[in-house]
């Protein structure tokens, strides 16, 4: 399968099934499009078609380049993976990551919070006890098979509201690593309100990644992320985040400034640029996941505006990169040479199988987005997974289980989308969320264009 597009002055051809990316001139762009429609077209026919516009020698030269890429398995390849490699249902899976919702409570009242300010679908508030957390880590170790690296995210609500337990759990995890031959990679996501020096020091020693929630410009952030009193949180958290990020940068550690954009800041590129202007350089900004009825939800008519924003952001990134003050944007990061194998690319996000969400009481759900929805309660860290039928459904969620994905050029980058989004919009986990797909495709195109632009530089 071929996908062609033009962006920022580049003619880009993706050979989807081999993962090859070609930057081509205008003539080759047209020739490839013609051949994609009809592979039986002969060189002579194509020369006849274009000789008024291009010299014959040029056309033949371009065609010979096209044919040699074809021979090398880099153009006009087919999907050879579908039947050959993966029997998804039979595939054994191990649990390799847990999202520990240590606090179903929050000290902010963000308007779009999918966790309903920590109550998750109106459930009770509460903090995870050390005993439950310890059991969760034991559960993870016991179900992780030969997998060495185990990921644990401290999440919420606001996990710093249960900080004493987080500290103890990290210590417990470290204490069993050697004996169990495992390595824990801890991550914490925080709104910053309770951050202090002690917490930063601890995280710099123990956490592989720290995700700081910030929505961008002060007015945008304060509108969506106020305290329960209605007062904004921007002024309180910015200095702490700046300090924390600077420390992690100096230590070579990962962090993300992570935001959510909604219908209220469709010009979100300005918010990402605002992050960069504040000195942050590892950035992420996501479209909100919300029911269509919410006033802040992304609407179909917002899509053209949002796509343009990704272009604006990309151009600014390229400009700053060339000036030596570049930043990374999570959704534009594509590792072309060191990226995942095809199995990983096809097998979906891992929710419900490799990745599970845990409530403060130890209940297990397919991922943090399903927490609190009783229909998806899988079991608990104490007595394991009872609903293997649900796990089997999630096992089968992959690129090939979704009709739209089979014909989508982004499938090897996207892996079939988000099961929770699909459930929110269609009441089933193996469908796709069209607005999300439109934006995902745009991001993949833009990310590749950035690679092209930087490659041309060199």
């Amino acid at each position, binding site marked *: 399968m071929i996908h062609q597009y033009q962006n920022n002055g580049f003619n880009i051809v993706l050979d989807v099934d081999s993962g090859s990316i070609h930057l081509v001139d205008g003539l080759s762009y047209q020739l490839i499009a013609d051949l994609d429609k009809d592979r039986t077209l002969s060189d002579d026919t194509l020369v006849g078609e274009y000789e008024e516009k291009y010299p014959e020698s040029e056309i033949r030269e371009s065609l010979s380049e096209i044919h040699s890429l074809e021979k090398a398995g880099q153009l006009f390849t087919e999907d050879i993976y579908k039947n050959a490699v993966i029997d998804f249902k039979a595939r054994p899976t191990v649990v390799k990551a847990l999202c520990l919702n240590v606090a179903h409570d929050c000290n902010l009242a963000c308007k779009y919070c999918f966790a309903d300010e920590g109550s998750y679908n109106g459930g009770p508030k509460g903090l995870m006890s050390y005993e439950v957390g310890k059991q969760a880590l034991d559960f993870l170790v016991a179900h992780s098979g030969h997998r060495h690296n185990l990921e644990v995210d401290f999440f919420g609500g606001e996990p710093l509201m249960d900080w004493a337990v987080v500290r103890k759990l990290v210590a417990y995890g470290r204490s069993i690593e050697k004996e169990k031959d495992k390595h824990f990679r801890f991550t914490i996501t925080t709104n910053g309100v309770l951050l202090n020096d002690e917490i930063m020091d601890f995280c710099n020693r123990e956490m592989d990644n720290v995700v700081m929630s910030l929505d961008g410009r002060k007015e945008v952030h304060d509108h969506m992320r106020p305290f329960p009193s209605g007062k904004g949180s921007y002024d309180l958290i910015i200095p702490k985040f700046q300090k924390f990020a600077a420390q992690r940068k100096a230590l070579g550690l990962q962090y993300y400034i992570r935001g959510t954009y909604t219908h209220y800041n469709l010009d979100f590129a300005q918010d990402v640029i605002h992050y960069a202007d504040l000195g942050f350089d590892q950035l992420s900004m996501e479209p909100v996941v919300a029911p269509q009825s919410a006033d802040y939800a992304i609407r179909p008519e917002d899509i053209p505006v949002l796509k343009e924003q990704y272009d604006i952001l990309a151009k600014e990134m390229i400009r700053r990169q060339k000036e030596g003050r570049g930043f990374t944007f999570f959704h534009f990061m594509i590792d072309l040479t060191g*990226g995942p194998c095809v199995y*990983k690319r096809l097998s979906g996000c891992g929710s419900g199988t490799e*990745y599970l969400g845990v409530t403060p009481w130890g209940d297990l759900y397919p991922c943090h987005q399903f927490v609190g929805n009783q229909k998806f309660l899988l079991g608990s860290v104490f007595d394991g997974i009872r609903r293997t039928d649900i796990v089997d459904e999630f096992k089968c969620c992959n690129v090939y289980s979704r009709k739209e994905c089979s014909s989508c050029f982004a499938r090897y980058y996207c892996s079939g989308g*988000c099961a929770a989004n699909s459930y929110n919009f269609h009441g089933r986990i193996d469908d796709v969320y069209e607005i999300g797909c439109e934006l995902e495709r745009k991001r993949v195109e833009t990310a590749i264009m950035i*690679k092209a632009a930087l490659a041309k530089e060199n």
Partner: protein
Amino acid sequence: MKHIQTLSTRSLQESMKKGGCGECQTSCQSACKTSCTVGNQVCEQLKKN
């Protein structure tokens, strides 16, 4: 080549031969929590080499 510049990428066909070990991160987890991108993840096997 004069008309076409090919960026270097990991061949997906080749990755079929030695892949699927499962050591890499789950996709949602790495930064975003509402995400579905795997293209930006790092293969632990390639990292080792």
